[in-house]
């Protein structure tokens, strides 16, 4: 008997008892729908997080603070958050923010650590900008901006391009929300100059920086609403900010960002080396890993539900096919009397099981993809919760996932089908023909 005939007959047999087959397929559908949907959401989230990681400076990024500062930050959070950690003791040698600066000696040591790219080291300076304004409006708005972290960073922009980091010109990549309020649109803001104004709180002096807009930043989770400026802008604003500071405060470095060679060195190894010189470091995973972990836990739970549904569906397949074997005892007997081999009988029931799995997964994937695309559109539409994240597709379907899920479900169905198929194959033609 030809394989094509067996496949055709198997599907015809499924159609013979439409309701029963449909219900079995429905059970498989629920399992395949849950699994493919969670895979799609996981792929969507991972895609988005990867984009964010890239926009933050890629995998080699390390944020470094002194160990005391790090503990202080942890302790402070603890004191406010869960109350488990002891209050932090006041120390004379610290500035009121509770941070311990990184010493120049430590900075030199960082640059010499094997695996760290010394040239990439950037002192992270908090820029204190009073407000932003433009020629097109009288209004003034608060704004947060920082120097771009080290590394070969491509900030995702909706319009315009990247900063000329080493250039002499003042440049900014502006957060999207400022475009409208400053009197521009995304179409005409590129190349225009806006004003960043620094007002000294005590001396009431004021300095205005005319900064050229080179790009509008696509919203994301990592940029946290910050605009990016090039080094020249950052340096000059910082100088202005610290103009009246006592000398020892001017050169104070609380945090640095640096790149390490993540292909040849583990994050732990580098962190340990920094720890040895009294510094603490956070990788990109430490910073946004918690978001990923959160999604992973939720999605794993859904995936487990999907597998439980599949398990129930597999029992459904076994049941359906046992009934089918029982009903078709005489037919199987006739087939065997007329020369069909046991192997072929086994194969035909196995293919019936696999067909059930195949149709269940096809329906599950089709419905999931349809709903996923509708959901993506709704969430990205005006008022949707992803409106401000155009690059975040909640459900992303990859060919790989689709194939894996389909093959997996067909395989589970095959396993479920082996029990009834074996019973069918072992039927003796005479006994089967006598059966009324």
């Amino acid at each position, binding site marked *: 008997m*030809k394989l094509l005939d067996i496949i055709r007959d198997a599907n015809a047999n499924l159609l013979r008892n439409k309701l029963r087959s449909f219900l079995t397929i429905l059970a498989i559908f629920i399992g395949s729908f849950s699994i493919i949907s969670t895979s799609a959401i996981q792929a969507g989230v991972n895609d988005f997080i990867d984009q964010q990681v890239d926009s933050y400076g890629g995998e080699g990024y390390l944020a470094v603070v002194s160990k005391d500062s790090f503990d202080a930050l942890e302790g402070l959070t603890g004191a406010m958050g869960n109350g488990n950690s002891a209050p932090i003791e006041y120390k004379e040698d610290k500035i009121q923010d509770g941070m311990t600066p990184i010493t120049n000696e430590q900075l030199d040591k960082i640059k010499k650590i094997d695996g760290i790219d010394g040239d990439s080291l950037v002192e992270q300076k908090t820029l204190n900008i009073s407000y932003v304004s433009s020629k097109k409006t009288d209004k003034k708005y608060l704004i947060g901006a920082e120097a771009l972290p080290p590394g070969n960073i491509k900030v995702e922009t909706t319009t315009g391009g990247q900063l000329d980091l080493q250039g002499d010109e003042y440049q900014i990549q502006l957060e999207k929300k400022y475009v409208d309020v400053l009197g521009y649109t995304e179409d005409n803001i590129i190349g225009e100059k806006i004003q960043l104004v620094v007002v000294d709180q005590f001396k009431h002096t004021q300095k205005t920086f005319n900064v050229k807009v080179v790009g509008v930043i696509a919203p994301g989770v990592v940029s946290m609403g910050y605009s990016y400026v090039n080094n020249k802008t950052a340096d000059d604003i910082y100088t202005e900010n610290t103009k009246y500071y006592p000398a020892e405060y001017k050169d104070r470095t609380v945090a640095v960002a640096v790149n390490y060679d993540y292909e040849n060195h583990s994050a732990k190894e580098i962190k340990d080396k920094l720890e040895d010189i009294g510094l603490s470091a956070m990788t990109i995973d430490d910073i946004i890993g918690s978001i990923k972990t959160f999604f992973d836990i939720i999605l794993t739970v859904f995936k487990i539900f999907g597998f439980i549904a599949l398990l129930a569906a597999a029992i459904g397949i076994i049941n359906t096919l046992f009934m089918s074997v029982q009903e078709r005892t005489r037919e199987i007997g006739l087939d065997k009397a*007329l*020369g069909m081999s046991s192997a072929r009988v086994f194969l035909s029931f196995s293919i019936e099981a696999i067909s059930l799995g195949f149709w269940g997964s096809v329906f599950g994937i089709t419905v999931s993809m349809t709903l996923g695309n509708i959901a993506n559109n709704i969430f990205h539409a005006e008022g949707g919760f992803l409106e401000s994240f155009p690059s975040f597709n909640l459900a992303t379907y990859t060919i790989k996932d689709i194939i894996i899920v389909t093959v997996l479900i067909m395989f589970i169905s095959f396993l479920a089908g082996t029990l009834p198929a074996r019973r069918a194959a072992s039927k003796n033609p005479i006994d089967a023909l006598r059966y009324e």
Partner: protein
Amino acid sequence: MSKTLISARSLRKSYGKRNSKFEALRGVTLNIHEGESVAIIGKSGSGKSTLMHLLALLDKPTRGEITLNGHPTARLHARKLNAIRNKKFGFVFQSFFMNANDTVLNNVILPLKIAGVGYRERHRRAISALKTVDLDDKRNNKASDLSGGQKQRVCIARAIVNDPKVIFADEPTGNLDSATGDKIINLLFKLNHEKGITLIIVTHDQDLANKCQRQISIKDGRIVSDSSADVEQDDDGDEEIREIVAESEEDDDDDDATPDKFEGDNNIDGMLDQKHPVRHINIEEDEEDL
């Protein structure tokens, strides 16, 4: 006299174990010749159906031996047995055994489908078989819509669609009224006369049995009479059969050298078509049991 097609020697068949053991056949020896029409008669429980199942290679005897054209079948691989039943035997059953929801044509096609015959070829042959039983016009009807006589004709079409050497019919008229039954019988005998298909009919209907060339009566698992003119109650029967088997094995050593491998159609054809210098022996009562 034509050559021996199927030869059974000292067939025994028992079901169950120890206390519940039931002996359906207690030593049956007979030869069936090519082109014969044989009725196996007996009451229910006599062992006639069991005998037919063994002759049709649907089941294996507990003891004894069946040879096809002199080839022993006991050690044949299941695949080869399947191929023989599929290509050389036709089956007609009392209760038809049709797939009621399928069309007439698809029911007739079944053996060819199992054999792996291509779509066009099997349709052509199925239609030609349906023409033989005069049901060509019903080919697209559902099998369940047919009358009993028509159903049995479809079964005959299914039995002859593979151009068999032998048709095994188990109570073919059992579920039919006598007029319809006669038509079915006539059809079977027509195939016997015109195509030379050997008929082996199991029945308890004496009228039907009388129309066959030869009647074999079975009672309690033993043959009690055989109408064949050549009946020889020969004490040396066993020895003679041994000679036959020996002769035929000499003839086709190459055929049976590798009984575990199915070597395609030619081999099966060989089993039933080869000319064998078989000495004619009709029937032996198994002496041990007398």
